[in-house]
């Protein structure tokens, strides 16, 4: 075996194996994991000491698994098995071994900045809080004393105190920001940048601002004010870095999943060894800086699932690369740029409630016009009255959930209605006709809402709304159908149990002869039931002969024959011989071609009549019938 040269700094084990389990190549981490001293053998199964891993690996070789977890030395390991095929033949196996703990910690490492921030920030916030309170008290008393003593010193003392309190307030806003309560919303990032730039208008006279917005309608998700403040801080820094003027470039690009914003200045730049410290609270390069601005920026971006990256060159300038998650269609919440839609959702909800009766009437009219059969079924089971009174249930659900989807409530309603329909035998295809027509009427309502009001939806907004409404409806349909089917399944199961009880009718003919007619398909479950019951009944009735009549079994395949043979063998152990009757010519033909050979123990006769005649001719035949007491 050779050590994989490429794999020196891999944090995971990689082993290349031949299909017979011989190790071809292995990297150091893999060696460490296998911990082998035994040289000479290099079959992986001889080297792995952990039995759990061994059995799992075996299953991988057999193709039953592709990955598994095993705990070795109290570390969880994830094994990934990869098969390299060429021309349909397995050439090599690759086994990847990951230590989950180290994976997690390496992931944590990339977030060190975040951690640093929160720990330092938390501590600082605690201190700040403690210090601010006495300072506030001092300020109050100073104000009181102001009337009696020399003004000048008091004023100095007060301004200094004011400054101290402001610093502390700033500090607290970084780590325990007021933004914490702010709700995540969806908003237009470009408009935010524009509004922030407006604030700097008076400082922009010697600075040239270049804006390159690729997609002005890009929407991001996050806490709007927090991000706005971060943008404010970044732009402020950029302007302050260029006291003698320069170019401030703000670029915005977006791809499928992210919106990126790059803010670059042509200012003094940041020394290389200090770039790493950016974002640490109290770290500043400015003369009178507090080291709070960038700390807030990092915190804001990271806590909004964004990413931030800095490149800087001294004397040339600094660029901040920000990226934000694009609005996710499923977690649409609305926001500033979409304020119309957010409001319109509330209004839409009200509109749907207000017009519930109207649209229900329209819907019912549609049903009576186009689905007369459905209508009569509804009338019969009283659902029509319910609709007249309470409105279309799906439309009500949409109205209730459009501004905020309440999954459990929807499920509860769906459960109740689904079970009810199942109990009243309301056919599921009719239920679906109701759903589909309801969906139609709901969209009619939504359409007329938007055409009546002045709100305009652009294409994105429309599709978001579409997802929203249809998600609600689909959730309902899904739950409804699931509960409906579940109830029916349970019903079938209980019926089946009842039928099973009835399906092994062993009829005593004389004192020691019984008949078992089998009717219907014999599947594994039923065959087992028949076998159990027959053996018990035969013992109970002390039968010496059992006639099994299979004329009621539509098809006999090898599985059925197999079950029958088992019953015959069981009976023989009880001292009871079996006569098989009722094999039709087609079945006989099929059985021959199948290759089924009838045991010589098993007597076969063409029908029941012959069997009875045969039994009567036997010397041990006792004609007396079963006594009835």
């Amino acid at each position: 075996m050779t050590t994989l040269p490429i794999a020196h700094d891999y944090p995971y084990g990689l082993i290349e194996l031949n299909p017979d389990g011989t190790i071809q190549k292995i990297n150091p981490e893999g060696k460490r994991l296998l911990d082998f001293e035994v040289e000479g053998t290099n079959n992986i199964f001889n080297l792995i000491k952990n039995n759990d891993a061994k059995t799992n690996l075996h299953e991988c070789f057999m193709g039953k698994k592709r990955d598994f977890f095993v705990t070795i030395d109290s570390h969880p390991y994830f094994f990934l098995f990869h098969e390299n095929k060429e021309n349909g033949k397995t050439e090599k196996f690759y086994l990847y071994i990951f230590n989950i703990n180290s994976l997690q910690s390496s992931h944590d490492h990339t977030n060190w900045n975040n951690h640093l921030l929160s720990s330092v920030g938390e501590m600082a916030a605690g201190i700040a809080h403690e210090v601010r309170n006495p300072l506030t008290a001092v300020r109050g008393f100073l104000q009181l004393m102001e009337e009696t003593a020399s003004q000048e010193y008091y004023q100095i003392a007060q301004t200094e105190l004011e400054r101290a309190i402001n610093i502390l307030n700033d500090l607290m806003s970084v780590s325990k920001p007021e933004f914490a309560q702010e709700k995540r919303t969806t908003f237009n990032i470009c408009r935010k940048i524009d509004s922030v730039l407006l604030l700097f208008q008076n400082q922009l006279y010697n600075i040239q601002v270049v804006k390159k917005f690729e997609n002005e309608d890009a929407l991001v998700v996050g806490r709007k004010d927090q991000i706005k403040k971060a943008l404010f801080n970044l732009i402020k820094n950029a302007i302050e870095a260029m006291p003698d003027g320069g170019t401030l470039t703000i670029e915005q690009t977006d791809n499928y999943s992210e919106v990126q914003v790059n803010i670059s200045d042509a200012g003094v730049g940041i020394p290389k060894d200090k770039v790493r410290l950016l974002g640490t609270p109290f770290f500043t390069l400015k003369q009178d800086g507090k080291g709070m601005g960038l700390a807030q920026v990092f915190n804001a971006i990271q806590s909004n699932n964004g990413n931030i990256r800095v490149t800087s060159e001294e004397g040339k300038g600094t660029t901040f690369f920000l990226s934000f998650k694009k609005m996710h269609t499923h977690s649409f919440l609305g926001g500033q740029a979409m304020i119309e839609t957010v409001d319109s959702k509330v209004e839409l909800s009200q509109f749907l409630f207000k017009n519930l009766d109207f649209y229900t009437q329209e819907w019912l009219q549609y049903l009576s016009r186009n689905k007369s059969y459905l209508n009569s079924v509804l009338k019969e089971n009283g659902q029509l009255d319910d609709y007249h009174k309470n409105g279309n249930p799906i439309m009500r659900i949409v109205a209730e959930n459009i501004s905020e989807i309440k999954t459990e409530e929807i499920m509860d309603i769906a459960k109740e209605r689904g079970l009810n329909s199942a109990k009243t035998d309301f056919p599921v295809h009719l239920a679906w006709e109701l759903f589909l027509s309801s969906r139609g009427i709901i969209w009619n309502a939504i359409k007329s809402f938007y055409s009546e009001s002045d709100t305009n939806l652009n294409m994105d907004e429309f599709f978001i709304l579409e997802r929203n409404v249809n998600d609600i409806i689909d959730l309902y349909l899904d739950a409804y159908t699931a509960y409906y089917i579940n109830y029916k399944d349970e019903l079938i199961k209980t019926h089946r149990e009842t039928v099973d009880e009835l399906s092994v009718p062993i009829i005593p003919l004389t004192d020691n002869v019984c008949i078992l007619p089998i009717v219907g398909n014999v599947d594994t479950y039923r065959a087992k039931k028949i076998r159990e019951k027959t053996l018990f009944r035969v013992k109970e009735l002390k039968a010496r002969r059992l006639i099994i009549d299979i004329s009621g079994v539509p098809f006999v395949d090898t599985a059925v024959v197999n079950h029958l043979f088992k019953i015959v063998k069981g009976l023989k152990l009880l001292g009871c011989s079996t006569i098989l009757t009722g094999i039709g010519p087609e079945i006989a033909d099929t059985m021959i071609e199948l290759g089924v050979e009838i045991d010589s123990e098993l007597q076969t006769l063409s029908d029941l009549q012959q069997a009875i005649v045969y039994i009567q001719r036997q010397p041990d035949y006792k004609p007396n019938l079963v006594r009835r007491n």
Partner: protein
Amino acid sequence: MFRIVIENEDDVYMACSIGKKVAAEHGLNKTQQTKLVVSIMELARNIVFYAKRGEIIINDIPSYGIEIIAKDQGPGIPNLDQYIDHAFPSKKGLGLGLSGVKRLMDEFEITTAINMGTRVRAVKWIKEGQGKHNDNITYRP
């Protein structure tokens, strides 16, 4: 063409009754119907027992025959020849299923690969003895 997903024994009977219907529609006599249905039953049961899930496709080829295709992604059949040519004891049945189907039907083809699955194609001719026997066995170890 009918496609029946086979996941449990109930599906086996579903496939059988569809097979019977198709066979009757094409005027197969009672014996031929039974042979076709039993073949479907054997193939479908094999899927349930060995591959857990798969599908049966019943396809009527006008004025030629009724084609059954049974497909699964199960463990495949090792030692296929033994199963095909003579009865081989199996754990779950008589071990006659596959060889039986081969005898019951007029055309029979099987392709199997270990851990990749099995595909069986079998045809019952509408007119008995209309063509030459055409058995094919493809086996990739």
